[in-house]
């Protein structure tokens, strides 16, 4: 527990120090939102309907950059090996990093939200719900993302391998988050958003323990 807190502190501190890079990732996400809107055209009605979906697509692509970065810092100077040498349990390293990545991705989502609102013009009364979905959804991206980023960072083609491995895995997160977000923004007459949120919760409940268990295999030699 103490080790998880220390590892979390370390990753949050590193994230804060690297905030210039983090802002660049946010700009990348915002650019994606802009480009996607061009694919639709200036039809306000269609844009409003697709805003929730595009927010998550942009977030997903931007997250691969953020996740890759979190391990780049561990690879240079072999810092992660240093952590293991101190006798820190790999699961503690994982949870500290996954929690920090969750925070980073959540903040990234919050930064992209106003961009999406401006470009796609959804109704604003469901925004609180969207923030909640962001929290649950980014948690779903963070755990498998941290695991696979740790794996991919040790290979030759990590830029390609991370998305290739991660995206099929987080399809349920994408589906549920997009549905829940769209329902919050466009109206939810049958109260389904809550069920989608529960699906996200179930996904998190399965993958946070599972990824933590398997992380040790990924960073050991």
């Amino acid at each position, binding site marked *: 527990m*103490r*080790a998880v*807190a*220390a*590892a979390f*502190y*370390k990753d949050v*501190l*590193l994230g804060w*120090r*690297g905030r210039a890079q983090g802002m660049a990732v946010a700009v990348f996400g915002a650019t994606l939102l802009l480009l996607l809107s061009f694919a639709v055209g200036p039809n306000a009605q269609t844009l409003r309907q697709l805003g929730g979906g595009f927010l998550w697509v942009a977030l997903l692509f931007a997250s691969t950059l953020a996740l890759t970065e979190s391990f780049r*810092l561990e690879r*240079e*100077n*072999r*810092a992660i*090996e*240093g*952590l*293991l*040498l*101190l*006798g*820190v349990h790999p699961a503690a390293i994982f949870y500290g990093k996954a929690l920090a990545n969750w925070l980073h991705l959540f903040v990234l989502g919050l930064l992209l939200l106003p961009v999406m609102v401006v470009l796609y013009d959804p109704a604003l009364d469901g925004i609180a719900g969207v923030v909640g979905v962001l929290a649950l959804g980014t948690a779903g991206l963070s755990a498998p993302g941290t695991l696979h980023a740790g794996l991919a960072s040790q290979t030759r083609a990590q830029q390609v391998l991370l998305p290739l491995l991660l995206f099929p895995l987080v399809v349920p997160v994408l589906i549920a988050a997009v549905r829940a977000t769209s329902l919050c923004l466009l109206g939810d007459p049958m109260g389904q958003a809550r069920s989608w949120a529960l699906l996200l919760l179930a996904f998190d409940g399965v993958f946070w323990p599972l990824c933590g268990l398997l992380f040790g295999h990924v960073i*050991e*030699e």
Partner: protein
Amino acid sequence: MQCPAPETGPRAMNETRTAIEARGLCKRYGRTWALVDVDLCVRPGEALVVAGRNGSGKSTLLRVLAGTLRPDRGEVRLLGEPVRRGRAALVGHASFTYDALSGAENLRIAARLLGRPSGPTDVQFFLDRVGLGARGADRVQAYSAGMRKRLALARALLQDAPVVLLDEPYGQLDPPGFGLIDRLVDELREEGRAVVLASHQVERLARICDRALLLDAGRAAWSGPATELPFVFQRLEEASIRAVAG
């Protein structure tokens, strides 16, 4: 492999328990074997120098002893128990640091992870001990290679481990740094820790260490008292020059 009784060292007659014991170590990287059937044995309070040319397997051996590399064959025991990460402190070629953080912050994180006191004064003690007292607040990004080495040493000292492994400790250090390493090795031996150094500084370490192990292409070519190492090393060099020329 029986540990011979040490002739020198402050704990020569007292300790019969071994601090490090390794048997039949083999390690491969892809198709090449970096270590082949290496045995060694170090007592608490003893210093062993591991010498050999580049690529002879010194770094690999140290990483296996630290528990960070699993050997493909053989076993390592630290203080009688199977090796576990955290029981040995390693100062390697990589500095294990986060460049974006300061030296003091790196140490503070290490202390927190170890459950040791991590206040400013606690960390400062170790920074002073390695001569980084004035530069603790600077980011590691701005450190020279020698300073990174010192920081890595501070981290290893903070770990307070019974076994300390130093891989090329003299590399990148200035002459005062050489003196620092010599002093630290003596201090660690006084404290009853087992020290293993991998180095090319054969003459220097022959004076400081108790015993020596010579590696050649991953195999243990010779082991004996450290004082004899320079002669053995020279003979090995001459033999290889003759082999190339003849």
